[in-house]
């Protein structure tokens, strides 16, 4: 009892950082629960991933089989059901990623496991696990308790913590795939790479980012004016690119680009975690938002709590004046 299992995530030949992040959290939890950590890896030709994971966990259980060359929620589910029934961990962690959200809820239903999604922290209180998650896009937190019997299941938010340095030499155990045949009802076809546009915002030094607060396409003229004054490239939140104010390759965040400019000016962006994840590498962040509780201010270096329509034009004017 007290063991914490983590599903390692990988895609297109690379292990994903969320795996190490979860194992870092799992190690702390297992220590408190008096158990050990196990990384579960499903793939094909993934010996090197198993070795990497052994640096973060007490044990690596892995299936190396051509059936798992590419992620497929249905195949993963079948294997995880077997493994969870066999090993009965206290807690099973899956990344709250596009892979994890496509898998965990169905697994929870099939196994009737107590399940909490998008957990960003787990504490142990009186020997019991207490997962914490957010509501209302980060404006409220909620503490949870599991009812009923372990194993418990969570999806764990990416980048909630920094992965520790590898410090373990876990035992590596290769197991036969409990799944013997391919399945028909869901099939992986191919990956398509993200579109590339005229400007590569991952290389931009100065970025002005717009969000839903800009309201309408026609207000982009005002933003472009500001951008011209400081030679900035334009980018935006998902809301801005969905609305068509900017092309999709200008979207910043988990499902868009990760940027690392010298200066990032966020205008009318609330700061959803999917957006913030993409801007953490910015040297200086300026946020303009009229909601003082907007989560964007938690990562900002300069906060302007006000109406962007009053601030932006004046800022452009002053910048032009100062820069001649």
């Amino acid at each position, binding site marked *: 009892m007290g063991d914490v299992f983590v599903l390692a995530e990988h895609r297109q030949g690379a292990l994903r950082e969320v795996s190490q992040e979860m194992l870092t959290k799992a190690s702390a939890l297992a220590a408190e629960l008096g158990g050990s950590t196990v990384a579960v890896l499903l793939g094909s030709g993934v010996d090197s991933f198993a070795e990497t994971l052994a640096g973060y966990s007490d044990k690596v259980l892995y299936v190396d089989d051509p059936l798992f060359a590419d992620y497929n*929620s249905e195949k993963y589910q079948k294997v995880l059901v077997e493994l969870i029934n066999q090993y009965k961990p206290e807690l099973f962690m899956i990344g709250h*990623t596009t892979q994890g*959200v*496509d898998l965990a*809820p*169905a697994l*929870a*239903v099939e196994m009737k496991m107590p*399940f909490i*999604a*998008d957990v960003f922290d787990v504490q142990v209180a009186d020997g019991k696990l207490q997962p914490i998650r*957010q509501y*209302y896009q*980060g404006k*409220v*937190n*909620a*503490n*949870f*308790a*599991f*009812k*009923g019997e372990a194993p418990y299941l969570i*999806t764990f938010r990416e980048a909630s913590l920094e992965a520790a340095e590898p410090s373990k030499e876990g035992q590596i155990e290769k197991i036969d795939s409990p799944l013997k045949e391919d399945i028909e*009802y*869901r099939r*992986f*076809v*191919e*990956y398509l790479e*993200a*579109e590339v546009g005229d400007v590569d915002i991952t290389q931009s030094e100065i970025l002005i980012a717009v969000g839903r607060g800009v309201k309408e396409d026609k207000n982009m003229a005002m933003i472009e004016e500001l951008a011209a004054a400081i030679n900035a490239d334009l980018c935006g939140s998902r809301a801005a*690119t*969905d609305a*068509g104010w900017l092309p*999709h*390759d200008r*979207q910043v965040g*988990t499902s*868009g*680009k990760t940027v690392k400019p*010298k200066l990032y000016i966020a205008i009318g962006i609330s700061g959803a975690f999917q957006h913030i994840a993409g801007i953490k590498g910015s040297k200086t962040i*300026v946020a303009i938002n009229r*909601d003082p*509780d907007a989560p964007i*201010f*938690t990562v*900002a270096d*300069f*906060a*302007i*709590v006000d*109406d962007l329509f*009053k*601030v932006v034009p*004046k*800022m452009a004017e*002053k*910048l032009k004046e100062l*820069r001649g």
Partner: protein
Amino acid sequence: MKTFVCIKRVPDTSEAEVKVDATGKDVDSSKFSFDINDADNYAVEEAVLIKEAKGGTVQVICMGPADADVMIRMALAKGGDSAMRIDDPRINARDPLQSAKALAAAIKGQEFDLVLTGCMSNDDGNMSTGVALAEELGIPHAAMVKKVEVEDGKIKAHRELEGGVIEVVEVTLPAVVTIQTGINEPRYAPIRGIRQAQKKELKVLKIEDLNLSEEEVGAAGSLIEMKEFYIPEVVSTAEIIEGEPEEKAEIMATKLVKGGLL
């Protein structure tokens, strides 16, 4: 194609102050304005586009209070044929697995090819209901989908992954697809449609109508317990620029130029 589309009524809290209510387990929503969940709006459009291309029907399902009817009628005005609203406070709608059970019960026993949900609700943000719903119905799914290609007895779903990479998967029908924002351009409801929508069927259902018991979908039957809601401490190290809007603009502009931030 017979399609069900699940839509949720959610508050717009992007600029609202959110306060925990006296129970400590909910928020005071008396001052919020509500509308259809973002991703669900795209799901409705996708369902209607599929109907326009392939024929068939679109049935709207919403679990929520009578106030949700306005939003349901809008979906009907855009091309939905009929609607069901599950309205029963005994259901623990804060647990996505319980919600999925109730939504599944409304669908079970009927003929269908496709169920569309949003990929995430703006208020609870579990990103779980659709995939749980698929398992409840015993059918395959694809989550976070930004393109649906309908083929014979199956679909090709383009799943949007981190970094904007697309994973194309083939899923046999019937299936559940969770729709990501940006998949299409949601239309405005036409005036004529709004008038017609008033005459379309909107059934209101309680758990008894769904053959569910309170033990199955109520708080007591939930395997998780929400202990408390609280407002997180906002740890901001930002320098707050003070003054009238114009002053703030000038101060910030000066800092950018003189502070060597450009």
